[in-house]
């Protein structure tokens, strides 16, 4: 494609470039979008006119904001106003958090703190896929963060309780708001408890649903004075107000956003295993990028900025192949109440719309996700496919677990793959590690554990809010 023909206007990669994805193939050509094939005949326009003809295509993603003007509401603006009015306190991202800026769907800037983090755990992850939080803490340690000083893992927090909210309808906005503010108040005051200023540690939300739910609740809190009044009463009773005011964080940050902004450091400083032969598919949690979608990270250099950058960016930074598949946008089938009591739906959906497709279309070595519910759903529901000639299997894990493997973390002790039902053995072997040897080592370690010799990523005393 050397000729500048009318349709062939955007091959310089400016703007939307590098987005062309052939399903089932790794995107390597870096060609621009919307370029026509060689057959494409020129109209009678001159080359220059022809380029101008669709010049507008090159004015890229950022236009999402420009044209929208003030009709697209940025909740943060309203928060700043409320703070000015003396109604709330904003837990701000400051220098000690060493933030890195990213762009969101509308091109808005979002600061992602990289340090001084307060881990807000996920009940599904911790209860079911503990390799998630351990891989994340392992990375922080690898970067030289000092547990208890550069990040906190405390017992003084509850789940967001949104699983129950979405699953049953028992629970309501007020209770979700109170839980949100209670947990985040604790994150705000934890700094003081450890000898720093208030707000020293910034919350890092591990769960996709918590992330989506907190963003939604934050919106409602900002919009509704009535809701603020109601929860202020509750928080007052709990002793969870600061100067009589509610504390709301400036940004809600998901762990995969931390991984996203750290991806290049992970790849350049820590990676030990070449993963260029690994075919990955991405499944991004609905509650990460569909709920309050203006807050999800989009990056013009990842998928042309056309889909959220999360997960894909990490896989690409590690040098793995990222393969497209036709049900990329589909949910996993979790369904909140469905995975508990409507399992027929969950298993049918995940097999037909995710696992089969990733297997047949993409021939993927692994499906990477960024939420507990998705990993659980896709991981645990594969086996029953055998009952109806749907024996499609594919390893499922979080992108942070995959990254940890690529950086040489132990598949059992750190990445905790023993809790997964899907064939993670195959992936580990393909990455050049011996599953059976790692397993043997781990079984030896279990004996040590039984004897009380446990290795920790995080000083166990600190978990109880203890003093350093």
């Amino acid at each position: 494609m050397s000729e500048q023909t009318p349709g062939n206007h955007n091959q310089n990669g400016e703007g939307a470039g590098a987005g062309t994805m052939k399903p089932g193939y790794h995107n390597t050509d870096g060609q621009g979008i919307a370029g026509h094939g060689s057959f494409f005949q020129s109209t009678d326009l001159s080359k220059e006119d022809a380029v101008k003809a669709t010049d507008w295509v090159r004015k890229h993603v950022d236009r999402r904001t420009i044209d929208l003007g003030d009709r697209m509401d940025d909740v943060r603006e309203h928060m700043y106003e409320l703070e000015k009015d003396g109604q709330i306190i904003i837990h701000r991202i400051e220098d000690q958090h060493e933030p890195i800026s990213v762009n969101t769907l509308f091109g808005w800037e979002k600061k992602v703190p990289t340090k001084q983090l307060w881990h807000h755990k996920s009940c599904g992850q911790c209860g079911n896929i503990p390799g998630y939080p351990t891989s994340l803490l392992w990375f922080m340690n690898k970067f030289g963060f000092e547990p208890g000083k550069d990040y906190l893992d405390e017992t003084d927090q509850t789940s967001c309780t949104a699983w129950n909210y979405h699953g049953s309808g028992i629970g309501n906005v007020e209770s979700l708001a109170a839980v949100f503010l209670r947990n985040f108040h604790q994150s705000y005051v934890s700094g003081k408890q450890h000898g720093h200023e208030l707000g020293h540690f910034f919350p890092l939300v591990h769960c996709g649903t918590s992330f989506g739910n907190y963003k939604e609740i934050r919106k409602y809190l900002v919009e509704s004075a009535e809701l603020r009044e109601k929860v202020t009463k509750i928080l007052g009773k709990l002793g969870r107000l600061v100067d009589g005011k509610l504390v709301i964080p400036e940004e809600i940050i998901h762990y995969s956003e931390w991984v996203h902004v750290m991806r290049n450091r992970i790849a350049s400083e820590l990676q030990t295993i070449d993963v260029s032969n690994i075919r990955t598919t991405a499944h991004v949690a609905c509650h990460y990028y569909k709920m309050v979608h203006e807050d999800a990270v989009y990056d013009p250099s990842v998928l042309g900025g056309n889909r959220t950058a999360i997960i894909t960016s990490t896989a690409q930074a590690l040098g793995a192949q990222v393969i497209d598949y036709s049900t990329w946008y589909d949910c996993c089938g979790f369904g909140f109440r469905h995975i508990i009591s409507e399992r027929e739906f969950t298993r049918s959906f995940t097999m037909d719309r995710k696992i089969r497709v990733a297997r047949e279309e993409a021939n993927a070595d692994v499906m990477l996700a960024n939420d507990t519910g998705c990993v659980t759903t896709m991981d645990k529901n594969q086996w029953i496919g055998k009952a109806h000639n749907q024996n499609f299997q594919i390893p499922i894990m979080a992108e942070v677990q995959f990254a940890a493997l690529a950086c040489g973390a132990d598949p059992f002790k750190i990445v905790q793959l023993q809790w997964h039902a899907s064939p993670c053995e195959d992936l580990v072997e393909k990455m050049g590690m011996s599953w059976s040897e790692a397993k043997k080592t781990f079984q030896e370690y279990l004996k040590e554990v039984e004897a009380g010799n446990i290795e920790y990523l995080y000083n166990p005393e600190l978990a109880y809010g203890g003093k350093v």
Partner: protein
Amino acid sequence: MATYAEMQQIFDDIRGDFRYDHELNGCLNCGICTATCPSAQFYDYSPREIVQLLWTENVEQIYDAMQEKIWACAQCMTCAARCPFKNSPGGLVAIMREVAIKHEMQSAKDVLRPFGRVMLKLITTGNQLSPDMIQPDHFPDWGPNIQKVEGDLRILRKAIPVKTLQTVETAWEVSLKTSVEMYTIWEMTGVLKSLELMDENLFDVIEDFIDEKREDYEDWLEEQEEEDDE
């Protein structure tokens, strides 16, 4: 079967929710929501239809939909992310579910019975899921390979290198004070009240548990004071 007045009341309660206007702006019947809906792929369920019923204030069919259809929604919220009108069919379903519970609809009770385990865990511990909830014998359909290393659950959990996660009955260790704060939230926001309407037995179990925990907490506080006095 409810009377028309009851059905009207149910609709009024839905419409009266402060989220309602936020989630419903209008509808051109375009079908984007249903197109992206995971439930619509398998159930005769359509977010478009739910929105249409509400938009046209069809109280009888709204009542019908609350018997069954609203429970098919998977709450993924793809509909809300896509709707060209910026409606949130999933958000409307959430309101309808809450109203179904408020009105003690039998459908809600039937649906939520198997969900009791999650509610019990959540309301008592603040965690919605715990390691002991997903043992192989609970869910045979998850197969024999649910854990790749044989062994006692307690030991396997102890092999997680983070102290807060070395738990069996909760996803992580939650401090007593935190739990007690959470019980206050449940009470003050009417969550326990809703639970009582839905499942009285479960409510009784949970209430006993809460009382016990509160006593534990009081005892602990006293101990602390004594220690401080020493």
